[in-house]
């Protein structure tokens, strides 16, 4: 026990046991954040240090959770006593078996960058100036309507009455930019974002350039008449589709509550043979990669769909115990809420084609860059729909007119089975969801 936080956690553990709890778990989160906000220029530079502590107490299958943002001995004790009294009043949860017992840590690469810990505000403002410069150099009519550059270091300490004290440290750097154009006309904008664990991997220049290009094309974009044509999904966009369609429904929690369309379908063919999806909890540099999950269970690779066959779900300790298996290391929580299963890094296996080859093979299609309203798609019914904010027509293998203001729709469950006719080799990510470029053979397009 070295740190003050670990001492605090140990103290809570002792108190919980002294009060008569069968099981005690302490989760402590300390996050340092630095942020630059841009509106036309650098508008705000902020720094924060946020802490939180959550105590779960289990007494005869009764669970209570209490939390506080104060990491003091007094607050810790008060929180523990409250969690114990909450557990006492709760009816027993008959599905409760235990807190995580097989806790531990694995070696992972690329999740902590000491440079971020030592980053000066001046280094970040240089990156902000790079954003401003890239946008105005592309075209003097362009400006940064809104942007942010954020870095942070998060330290998480997890202790329960079964195992060792675990501590992990993650760094992150992210940016997004919205580029506007001062040429009169409609207010179409270009947006782009990026996220990484490593400061030097955050390519502010490239992200700013992409958003600038889109702000330019968006001005010329028009709707197209109703039709059904091949849709080429940019890798980051299809990554969002994966997270909407599977992020909730492949969790054992949804399956056990009968809220998932994938319940009872393990071993069934639910997608075409080229469709392989996994949760890569330990992949190097993965956004959701960690030494252990939010219950202290080591993260790992989980096969979800292999060659079109449904292989499994993602579990935390509670849902795993309920199904009589081991947790897959997918517990996710904040200090003030209980864990639940959530993907670490959803990963759709790539194909062999380059983006150029996919475009070349397309006689008449739509290449999607930016969408709005994608989240209104329905992972239970498979309805997939969104409004195109920025896209391009592809005609005879060439990207031609910019398109916006059309609604695309289709059924994702059908698309998984026989709709994805081309899969790229170019994997990119949106948050912890990874995908190559995907061409869907046909989706309906309707002007808004």
């Amino acid at each position, binding site marked *: 026990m070295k740190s003050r936080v670990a001492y605090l956690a140990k103290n809570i553990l002792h108190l919980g046991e002294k009060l008569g709890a069968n099981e005690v778990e302490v989760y402590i989160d300390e996050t340092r954040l630095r942020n630059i906000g841009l509106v036309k220029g650098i508008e705000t530079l902020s720094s924060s240090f946020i802490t939180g502590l959550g105590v779960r107490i289990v007494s005869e299958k009764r669970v209570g959770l209490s939390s506080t943002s104060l990491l003091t001995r007094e607050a810790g004790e008060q929180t523990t006593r409250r969690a114990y009294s909450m557990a006492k009043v709760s009816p027993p949860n008959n599905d409760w078996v235990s807190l995580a017992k097989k806790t531990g840590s694995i070696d992972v690469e690329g999740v902590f960058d000491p440079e971020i810990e030592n980053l000066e505000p001046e280094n970040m403002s240089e990156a902000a100036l790079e954003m401003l410069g890239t946008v105005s150099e592309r075209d003097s009519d362009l400006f940064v309507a809104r942007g942010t550059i954020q870095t942070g270091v998060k330290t998480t300490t997890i202790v329960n009455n079964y195992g060792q004290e675990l501590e992990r440290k993650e760094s992150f750097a992210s940016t997004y930019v919205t580029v*506007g154009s001062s040429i009169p006309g409609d207010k179409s904008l270009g947006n782009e974002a990026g996220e990484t664990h490593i400061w030097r991997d955050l390519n502010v220049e490239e992200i700013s350039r992409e958003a600038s290009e889109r702000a330019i094309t968006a001005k010329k974009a028009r709707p197209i008449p109703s039709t059904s044509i091949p849709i080429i999904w940019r890798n980051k966009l299809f990554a969002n589709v994966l997270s909407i369609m599977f992020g909730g429904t492949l969790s054992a929690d949804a399956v056990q509550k009968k809220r998932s369309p994938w319940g009872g379908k393990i071993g069934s063919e639910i997608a075409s043979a080229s469709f392989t999806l996994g949760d890569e909890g330990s992949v190097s540099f993965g956004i959701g990669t960690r030494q252990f999950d939010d219950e202290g269970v080591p993260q790992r690779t989980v096969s979800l769909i292999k060659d079109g066959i449904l292989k499994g779900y993602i579990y935390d300790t509670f849902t795993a115990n309920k199904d009589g298996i081991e947790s897959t290391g997918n517990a996710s929580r904040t200090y003030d809420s209980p864990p639940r299963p959530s993907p670490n890094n959803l990963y759709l296996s790539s194909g062999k084609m380059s983006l150029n080859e996919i475009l070349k093979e397309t006689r008449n299609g739509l290449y999607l860059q930016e969408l709005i309203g994608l989240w209104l798609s329905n992972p239970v019914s498979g309805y997939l729909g969104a409004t195109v904010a920025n896209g391009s027509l592809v005609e005879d293998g060439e990207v031609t007119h910019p398109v916006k203001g059309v609604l695309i729709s289709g059924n994702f469950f059908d698309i998984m089975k026989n709709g994805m006719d081309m899969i790229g080799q170019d994997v990119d990510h949106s948050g912890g969801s990874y995908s190559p470029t995907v061409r869907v053979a046909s989706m309906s397009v309707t002007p808004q």
Partner: protein
Amino acid sequence: MLLLYMEPEVYSQELVEHLIEYATRQGADYVAFLFQEEDSGSMVVENGELKAFEEGKSSGLGIRVLVDGSLGIASSTKFSLQVLKESVKYALRMAKASKKGIEKTCLSDTEPLKTTIESAWKKNPDDFSDEEKLKLLLETNKAAQLEGIVSSNTRMGWMTERRLFQSSEGALVETTVHMAGLAHSAIASSGDRMESMFDSKSRCAGFEFISDVDWQEFSSNISNTALKAVQAPTPESGTYKVIADPAMVGLIFHEALGHASEGDLVTSGESVLEGCLGKKVASPLVTIVDQGIVEDGFYVPFDDEGVEKKRQIVVEKGFLRGFLHSRSSAMKLGCQSTGNARCQSFGDKPLVRQTNYFIEGGDRSFEELLEGIDSGIYLCGSGARGGEVDVGRGAFTFSSGPSFAIKKGELAEMIRGVSVGGMVLDTLNRVTAVGKDVSIETSIFGGCGKDGQRARVGHGGPHILIEKMAIGGKS
């Protein structure tokens, strides 16, 4: 003497004054402190069993400084004198981190206020034992477990949030909000069809709001709606005459017009309303306001810059009269703050946010709105999954909750799977009648997201008749 915070280490108004003086000596032109403290709890019962019982306390302090128009912010959840001094220094350092590329923040004039205000409440959540809370929730959940319902989930939430704003201009504004609410969701199944329905009721009030309402009626109504909805047809896609209910009106116009009227999005060039001040943007029947205190809405008497949130007319009889402003967005357009600067938490930059944004009532009864509609749709907001808006273009797409067909001037069968889309200014110009029944709602469970910050808001209006709207259903 008002003491801001006594625990765990000394934190007081005098200390803050001392820190303000310190920051001023170090070159700050303006210093503001925002202290925030929240006590909250929630309990969830699912299918007759307690699934979650959580309580939490959080507190923190944010420091904003302006140096030559450059805004630096530092915040912490620790309150020792040493940490606070470090935070002040850090805020100053942040403000001075760049000499180039600065978009200056200038604040419009405002009178520094000294006041303390609290939303009305009668009963403290702590006066009800954990057992009593659980009993009420179990009974509410049980009442909704009807035949055909495969899953039912009931959630209760309560919170008290205190915000204290203190500035180098002499402002000292303390606001306390009490809130409680209950939400219920039900999933009905029939053959291989599933339909979910949810609704919630929240109020800025004490725990009397929970103890005085018949929640069993509320939850069983939701289950009954889910059971009807799972059997309901989906309408043909097309263009319809539409009556939107207050919940749907609130949802659409908060998103599609409310955000476009936020001054920071207007000055950054992201709003479809830029350059429209004084112009006709809606039918003459439409008047829209943003008001800090309104019955059944969220409670925002003052914003997070210590400015009083008064009633602001955005659209008056179809003409755009004003935007919502923080002190800095107001300065850019040469006007006064409307008290709309709000941040999610102490360390955030205040953004221009709506408070309670709603359409004002007209002169029609619901029956009068129905009259003369040969074929149309009654669009209902309860159970709606939400929507998304392109604020720059004013384009919106929303899904509604279970709704109804209108046939020959009367409500007909329930319909489901309805989505609605359009351009907001076209839609506002197609409002041909406005009901007199204004209803506003807010929620303890959700909030509106902008720039990574969430804020609780209220929205609503009366029933309105829209001559023509694109409805997505079956293609």
